[in-house]
């Protein structure tokens, strides 16, 4: 019956694979996270620090390079197999071997195939190439890619493919099937249709309250909205701000929201003409109508942000560096020698709300004489251009790869990581060195302090104008209880949910 | 064994009185028929002659009440036996169509439905009018009819489609289809104009035989005066929406009383002397856009008088069976029967 089935309407077309070693899209990781367990995991409502899950204790060597984890002994896979250290070893080696997109989350610590071994049936030892901040390392062990796969089942489905002539470690099969131990069992995934998860009542920690969850693919937000109001789905995932206003009038529903761990920013290529001058960059930062944009385009479902560490992460600061201040902006422009402004291009994506945001930014900058020409690009055009450092201005957003401030601090401030700082050609050796240092700082408080220091530099002279951090807002029918909105899909826990 | 030799009874089968048909076209109202009157006796063949556009086909279609928009029968009566076709309801008219009055058209191939086997088309005519008939016996009857039409291998031919047949063969099918219900009146609208002379001869002979067999009357429309001479008992000559002369075939062809008929006969090159120019009626057919208020032939007529372009000439009775609508006969008035004027050699 419907009473023990939860139906969630969501746009899940980005799922490519449900294999932990491959999945790296929002929805893919989100679903995979429900099916598998990891050594460490975040609780359902706090995301600053992971807790034990499969592991029940750990040890770290003097030099901080060798980590030993003791596993629980009462965990069984969905197949009935006992979960042992061999499975953990197999799973980590698998990630390294397959070396697909999320692999870097583990390999960034120098984990190679021979750096992990089973000490005994329930003890795993991992050797890192360096000393790393434990906070970063633990967050990564709680990431989807570190999920533990049933080695026996995976080996049964080993096959040779073009890309992996030596065997794919079950990758092909696991893309659409599961071999996990998590609270949910994958029953069926039909791309563009639905994902069906059945409860695993024998889960060692979180046996679900419901029998089944159906995640139904509904691309159009309007269609999701109609269905949740009609009661054909229980949760309409991610409603747009303009929809929220009228959904709130519906007594059968409530809105659950959570800040998303996403930061919208304007990337500024510091080699492009006037943009090289930090006064111009600062003028831009002062010219933007932050509140107007948040109120109108985001419908209030966002908050201004002046740090690269989003709310919810350790190190987030509620500090305001920039406010809309046209006088200041104009003065800075004049100081920089552009009293009459200049012309510049802005690239942006084609999905809502990018075009609207871009237009609003265009409007904002026009007020200080900067004429912006907009280029709406599909993602396969936008990102290569960004990577090639060919943009002037780019409207983009950043989401964390794992749940630790480092995952943001490094791309924004360390050009050597060849991500955002590098793309905007902001080569600051000082911030780069500080980030490297933070990466190895075992003391969490000291580490966070470094990030804050770096942030100050980045905010004042860096190649970005931070725009806002959006909120996820979901429409939930009132007969659904124990729903806790999470900043990402994979942090969202399905097991506590109940239905009346 | 030609039609004109059959005994003429005076029992009227069809009588058309003062028929007017107008077409509402882009350029105005085409006054296609302006008071056409004639009658047709039982077992008689009446020829309707005239040039293109004079209204022959419209007359024929009116008899079956088949004038489609933008055409309209404005006035007149069409008495068939004792019914006025123009006042009957649709069902009654449909019963007459094909059952009591049939019509053969000029282009045999165009007149057969290209996607239905010809045998079925013939059988359909039977089925429409005899609901007690079943399909297969209708087919058998249709095939018998085809055999009667001198069609070799009637069974095989009946399973063919129109495009697989020659023009002559298609016209035979048409005739079979129209005569298979043994109608009382057959209207033949230029049945042989599209055919070669040798085929025309075949078809005319065939029609002759069948018409004799089933004792039907024929309204034969043609612009070929030779065909007319050979097949008709009486003829009516039309010009621009009027019947200008009507009478027994011999009397009209030998002794035409209307200048138009005379001219028409003289333009036929058959026997003309190649060393002289052909006789040609001057001018062109008048536009039918104006309603008729005078003799429509007057501006082409060699004998035109002043009143010809003012008044519509009435029909003057020359003999019992010869009448003409021309003021030249004024004085030899309708009732008197009067003496004839020799217009051929004025």
């Amino acid at each position, binding site marked *: 019956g419907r009473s023990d089935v939860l139906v969630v309407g969501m746009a899940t077309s980005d799922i490519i694979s449900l294999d932990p070693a491959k999945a790296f899209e929002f929805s893919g990781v989100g679903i995979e996270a429900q099916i598998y367990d990891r050594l460490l995991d975040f609780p359902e409502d706090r995301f600053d620090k992971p807790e034990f899950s499969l592991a029940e204790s750990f040890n770290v060597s003097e030099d901080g390079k060798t980590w030993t984890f003791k596993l629980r002994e009462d965990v069984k896979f969905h197949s009935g197999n006992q979960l042992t250290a061999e499975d953990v070893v197999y799973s980590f080696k698998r990630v390294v071997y397959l070396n697909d997109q999320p692999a870097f989350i583990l390999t960034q610590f120098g984990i190679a195939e021979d750096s992990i071994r089973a000490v005994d049936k329930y003890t795993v030892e991992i050797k890192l190439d360096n000393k790393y901040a434990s906070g970063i390392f633990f967050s990564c062990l709680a990431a989807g890619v570190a999920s533990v796969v049933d080695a026996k089942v995976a080996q049964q489905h080993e096959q040779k493919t073009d890309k992996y002539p030596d065997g794919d470690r079950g990758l092909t099969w696991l893309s659409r099937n599961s071999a996990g131990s998590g609270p949910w069992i994958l029953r069926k995934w039909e791309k563009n249709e639905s994902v069906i998860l059945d409860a695993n009542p024998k889960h060692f920690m979180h046996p679900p309250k419901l029998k089944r969850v159906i995640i139904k693919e509904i691309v*159009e*937000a*309007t269609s999701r*909205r*109609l269905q949740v109001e009609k009661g054909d789905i229980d949760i309409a995932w991610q409603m*747009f701000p*303009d*929809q929220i*206003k*009228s959904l709130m009038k519906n007594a059968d529903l409530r809105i659950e929201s959570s800040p998303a761990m996403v930061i919208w920013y304007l990337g500024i290529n510091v080699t492009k003409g006037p943009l090289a001058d930090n006064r111009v960059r600062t003028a831009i930062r002062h010219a933007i*109508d932050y509140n*107007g*944009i948040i*109120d*109108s*385009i985001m419908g209030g479902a966002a908050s201004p942000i002046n740090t690269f560490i989003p709310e919810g992460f350790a190190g987030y600061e509620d500090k305001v560096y920039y406010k809309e201040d046209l006088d200041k902006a104009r003065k800075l422009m004049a100081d920089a020698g552009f009293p009459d402004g200049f012309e510049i291009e802005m690239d942006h994506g*084609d999905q*809502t709300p990018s*075009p*609207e945001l*871009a*237009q*609003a930014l*265009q*409007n904002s900058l026009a007020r200080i004489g900067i004429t912006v020409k*907009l*280029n*709406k*690009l*599909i993602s396969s055009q936008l990102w290569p251009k960004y990577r090639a450092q060919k943009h002037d201005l780019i409207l983009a957003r950043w989401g964390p790869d794992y749940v630790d401030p480092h995952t943001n601090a490094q791309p924004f401030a360390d050009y050597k990581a060849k991500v955002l700082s590098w793309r905007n050609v902001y080569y600051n050796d000082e911030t780069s060195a500080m980030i490297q240092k933070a990466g190895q700082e075992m003391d969490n408080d000291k580490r966070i302090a470094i990030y804050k220091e770096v942030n100050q530099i980045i905010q004042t002279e860096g190649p970005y104008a931070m725009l806002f951090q959006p909120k996820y807002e979901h429409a939930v029918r009132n007969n659904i209880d124990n729903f806790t909105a999470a900043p990402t899909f994979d942090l969202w826990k399905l097991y506590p949910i109940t239905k009346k | 064994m030609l039609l004109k030799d059959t005994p003429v009874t005076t029992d009227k089968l069809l009588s058309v009185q003062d028929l007017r048909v107008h077409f509402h*076209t*882009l350029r105005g109202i085409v006054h296609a028929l302006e008071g056409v009157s004639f009658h047709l006796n039982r077992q008689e063949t009446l020829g309707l002659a005239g040039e293109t556009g004079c209204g022959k086909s419209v007359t024929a279609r009116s008899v079956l009440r088949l004038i489609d928009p933008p055409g309209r029968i404005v006035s007149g009566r069409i008495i068939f036996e004792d019914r006025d076709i123009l006042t009957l309801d649709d069902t009654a008219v449909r019963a007459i169509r094909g059952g009591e009055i049939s019509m053969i058209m000029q282009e045999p191939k165009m007149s057969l439905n290209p996607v239905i086997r010809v045998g079925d088309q013939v059988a359909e005519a039977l089925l429409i009018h005899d609901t007690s008939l079943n399909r297969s016996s209708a087919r058998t009857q249709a095939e018998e009819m085809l055999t009667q039409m001198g069609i070799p291998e009637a069974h095989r031919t009946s399973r063919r489609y129109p495009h697989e047949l020659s023009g002559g063969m298609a016209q035979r099918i048409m005739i079979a289809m129209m005569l298979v219900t043994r109608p009382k009146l057959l209207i033949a609208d230029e049945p042989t104009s599209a055919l070669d002379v040798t085929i025309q001869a075949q078809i005319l002979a065939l029609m002759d035989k069948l018409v004799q067999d089933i004792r039907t009357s024929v309204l034969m429309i043609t612009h070929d005066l030779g065909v007319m001479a050979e097949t008709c008992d009486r003829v009516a000559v039309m010009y621009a929406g009027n019947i200008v002369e009507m009478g027994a075939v011999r009397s009209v062809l030998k002794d035409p009383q209307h200048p138009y008929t005379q001219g028409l006969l003289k333009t036929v090159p058959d026997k003309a002397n190649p060393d002289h120019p052909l006789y040609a009626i001057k001018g062109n057919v008048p536009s039918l856009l104006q309603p008729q208020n005078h003799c429509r032939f007057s501006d082409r007529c060699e004998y035109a008088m002043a009143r010809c372009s003012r008044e519509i000439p009435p029909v003057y009775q020359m003999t019992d069976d010869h009448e003409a609508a021309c003021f030249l006969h004024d004085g030899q008035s309708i009732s008197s029967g009067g003496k004839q004027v020799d217009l051929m050699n004025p």
Partner: protein
Amino acid sequence: MNTETQIDKRLARNQRWKARQRYFKDSYTLWRRNHLMVVGTTIIILLLLIALSAPLLATHNPLDQILSDRLLPPTWEHFFGTDSLGRDIFSRVVHGARVTLTIALLVALISTPVGLIIGVLAGYFGGAVDEILMRLSDVFLAFPKLILAIAFAAALGPGVENAIIAIAVANWPSYARLARAETLAVRDNDYIQVIRSMGASNLRIMVGHITPMCLSSIIVRLSLDMGTIILTAAGLGFLGLGAQPPTPEWGLMVSDGRLYLVDQWWVSTLPGFAILIVVMGFNLMGDGIRDILDPHQRQS
């Protein structure tokens, strides 16, 4: 030369003019009799007028964003309400007429000559030429049009100009088909044979005598296609490959507004109606042109 036949040029011009007048008068009568055609033409003429006088008609600057005035319903201040960026929809629809018209006309200007040339060549020469050209057009025809347009738009980069080229690329084969069919029908007609027997070259026959016969059916087809062209342009705009924001392109406006369909119906419905009406106008006009150009109609 006989002096009697010496032509007074003024008289000749006069006669030509009269002939043309007769032609137009007939056309006018045919036009007037066809009520839907009258409606269609009126719509298109209105569209033209609106496009020409857009700056005069528009009550606001179509690009001005007033973020505080977002999603206002239709009022006397904003006839069609405002969109998600607080722009006046009425003014955008009025200005959008220009964009739409430009796209439609330019596509027509590019794809019809190409289709016409290829189709006439294929139909006239037949044989290998026909085979090659028609296989080529088969390849393009077998592609779903929207997808082909997407491919080309993606290849050329986004923008109205490139969208126009892309749509033209996707469209020419159907005109080539039509022109070929028409050429085949006309090629063996007596009036072409006469010209040929008089020694006219192939080029002259094709250009001077066959093309005019193809033209009318192509014009008809084109006006019927206008709708698809406008909708394809809208689809491209929707995918980010057509007109770029903030260009007030109708298709773009419809797709931008679809998020607000339930609560702020006007945002996408009113530009949608603009598309509907214009496409219908073109269609009705196309049907009518067919009748007017048909010489048979004139005879009756």
